[in-house]
């Protein structure tokens, strides 16, 4: 673990605040719809900072008020409620009178990445893939309109997805949980996939989950065919209740199993046999769900009164922009490039512990000493508590 400063000297705070102020002065922030019905909250670069003192229950009635507020107070972090209230500035939640709330998803590295990850950019890529999966579920399975879905880089370790389709905004907490259960495949009944007739009373066509699972299974068996026996057996034994003897037998009969699946004329079917018993298929289905589901932060989505970062504001813990991303740009979006708003003007800092960064494709190895770094990297390190601003040095260097 890197050593992180839990305090920040006043030069650094002042420097960051000035830089943030310049940003808010020159940028037109991206307001959420019905902004005047939302509660706003900020964390200032005050004496306590980087300790979080959240100032809450603000409300604004015009764009100019917000723009002016951000420029004058220049907060380190800016949030608004996902909820719309009748009285957003009331100091007690109960008196705010909840009316509706955006449906939001928080995709964070903590939820998604198990184990070590080689770098920040790898981590962000993994979270981006997860976000793509979620977007697929939202537009295909829930048939939501792209225009009502807003994707935002969180400024830290992931992405936020805001859904603002009118008829979803009234959903309560339990109802939102059903949406989470859907995207995480939770409560999905393997029996419905193995015996599709069971749900024919409801629907004649297979659900998207069903199709996705059976197709995944077909691909999975085909991929086993390409493997060395020992690898394939290793794969198979990771399925519940499959021992090495059974795995070997399945491997030897792969072609027949694949032939039985036969997805050529639509969805593959999971045929029961001596080898592929019901409990075997259940294990395979469970495995498919595990591979196909989306990992989202459940309590965030279920909470109808959450605070979330303002898109286009700055994240005080990284100096990155909480960048809104259009659908067209999402594939190419690279947070370590596209969410960087500061310049590459050389800036003097004293590095507190050895770090590597890679912002705007510039790989920097910083030692524990005073160095000049591009402004964006310097701000990133200062915001994260890995460096302090060192103005005196800058004068001597410039001479």
């Amino acid at each position: 673990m890197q050593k992180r400063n839990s305090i920040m000297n006043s030069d650094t705070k002042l420097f960051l605040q000035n830089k943030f102020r310049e940003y808010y002065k020159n940028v037109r922030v991206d307001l959420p719809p019905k902004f005047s019905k939302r509660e706003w909250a900020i964390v200032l670069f005050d004496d306590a900072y980087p300790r979080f003192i959240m100032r809450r229950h603000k409300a604004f009635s015009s764009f100019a008020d917000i723009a002016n507020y951000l420029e004058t107070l220049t907060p380190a972090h800016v949030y608004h409620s996902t909820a719309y209230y009748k009285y957003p500035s009331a100091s007690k939640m109960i008196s705010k009178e909840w009316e509706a709330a955006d449906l939001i998803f928080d995709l964070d590295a903590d939820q998604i990445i198990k184990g070590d990850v080689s770098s920040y950019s790898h981590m962000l890529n993994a979270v981006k893939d997860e976000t793509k999966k979620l977007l697929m579920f939202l537009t295909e399975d829930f048939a939501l309109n792209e225009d009502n879905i807003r994707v935002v880089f969180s400024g830290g370790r992931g992405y936020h997805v805001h859904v603002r389709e009118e008829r979803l905004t009234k959903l309560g907490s339990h109802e939102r949980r059903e949406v989470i259960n859907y995207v995480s495949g939770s409560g999905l009944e393997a029996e419905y996939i193995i015996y599709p007739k069971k749900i024919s009373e409801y629907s004649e066509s297979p659900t998207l989950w069903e199709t996705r699972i059976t197709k995944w299974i077909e691909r999975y068996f085909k991929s086993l065919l390409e493997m060395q026996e020992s690898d394939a057996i290793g794969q198979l034994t990771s399925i519940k209740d499959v021992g090495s003897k059974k795995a070997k037998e399945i491997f030897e009969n792969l072609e027949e199993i694949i032939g039985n699946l036969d997805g050529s004329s639509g969805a593959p079917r999971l045929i029961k046999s001596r080898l592929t018993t019901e409990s075997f298929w259940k294990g395979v289905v469970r495995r498919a769900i595990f591979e196909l589901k989306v990992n989202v932060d459940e309590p965030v989505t279920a909470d109808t009164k959450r605070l979330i970062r303002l898109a286009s504001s700055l994240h005080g813990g990284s100096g990155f922009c909480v960048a809104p991303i259009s659908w067209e740009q999402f594939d190419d979006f690279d947070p370590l490039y596209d969410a960087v708003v500061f310049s590459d003007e050389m800036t003097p800092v004293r590095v507190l512990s050895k770090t590597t960064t890679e912002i705007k494709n510039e790989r920097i190895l910083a030692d524990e000493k005073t160095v000049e770094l591009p402004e964006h990297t310097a701000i990133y390190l200062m915001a994260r508590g890995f460096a302090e601003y060192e103005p005196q040095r800058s004068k001597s260097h410039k001479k």
Partner: protein
Amino acid sequence: MDEYFALFPFTRAASEYVKSSGISVEDLLTGGGFSTEVLTRSSQRVKQALEGEIGRVDLSEDIKVTAELFSYPVARVMVSCINVHFLTQKYANGEAQFAFQKLESLSEDKALTFISRLLADFDIEATLFEDENRYKFHFTDFVRFTSGLRDSRWKLVNVMNRGYIELAKKEVMKILQQAIRLKVLNAPQLKPSNKVCNSLSSDIKSIVATLDSSMSKSGDFGAIDADSYPPCIRELISLVQSGKSLSHTARFALTAFLANIGMSADDIVHFYENSPDFDFEFTRYQVEHIMGSSGTKYTSPGCSTMETYGNCYLKDKMCKYVSHPLSYYRKRSARRKASTKSNGNYTDIMV
């Protein structure tokens, strides 16, 4: 009068009709023959809901249809006067089940018409297929009424297709039953005045008598010995009842304990009614989960776990001899039974 109002008196349409009729509950309390009929039916609705199911009445004459309609708002007022959640809940279940049965017994044509009127009344947008046997719901309408249901066929993940769920007529009726239950349960809190409640006192008394016997009959409730609770459980109960919000671990410990000693889910849910974040459906779900609805039945945590999470309060002498709140309860209860006759009266827990 439109038969629909009498059959589904909790609908918006019916309550608008009642309003426009100019007859108020107070009028009915002082009125003549018509009001006797209404009052009798009202308390019957409530008592029958407590005992099992609300029975149908003869609706062959117009006056009877009208009485049937007015008996609902009056019954709801009686329930509000008594204001015991156990009753409100039983009553809501009863009305919802009654409505389902009525729908089932209607002719096909009439059922279709009434179903579509009910759907509109609950602001559910549903499309009826040409075969007149299946409906299509948007998922937002579906989850509004099914998120409290546990069966896997009510889970989006098993039944949704591109934002919609196809439902058989019978399933739609189940959803309506659920909608009705919630509507009756949360009927905009009628706060009847003391005057109104007083004038209903004889009906209320007879309902309370039915309520008492139904509560002591319900499950093992009567066998619960509240005086034998260990101090930690007493403390948790008093915290909840004074409106404090319990930590997750404390909530679990209390719920599991009460379930383990044989209390029913409904009765456990009672305890949480004063919690600041009380949410009936969710609490019920949590309680049922702990009681084993998902297949695992939980046992309440032992003393050392209680201590770890800061849930061990007010240790007394007997705590030295036990390592589990349940063994405390068993020992204490056995001792008390040996010395005095236990009065397994529900009022011990109700307070």
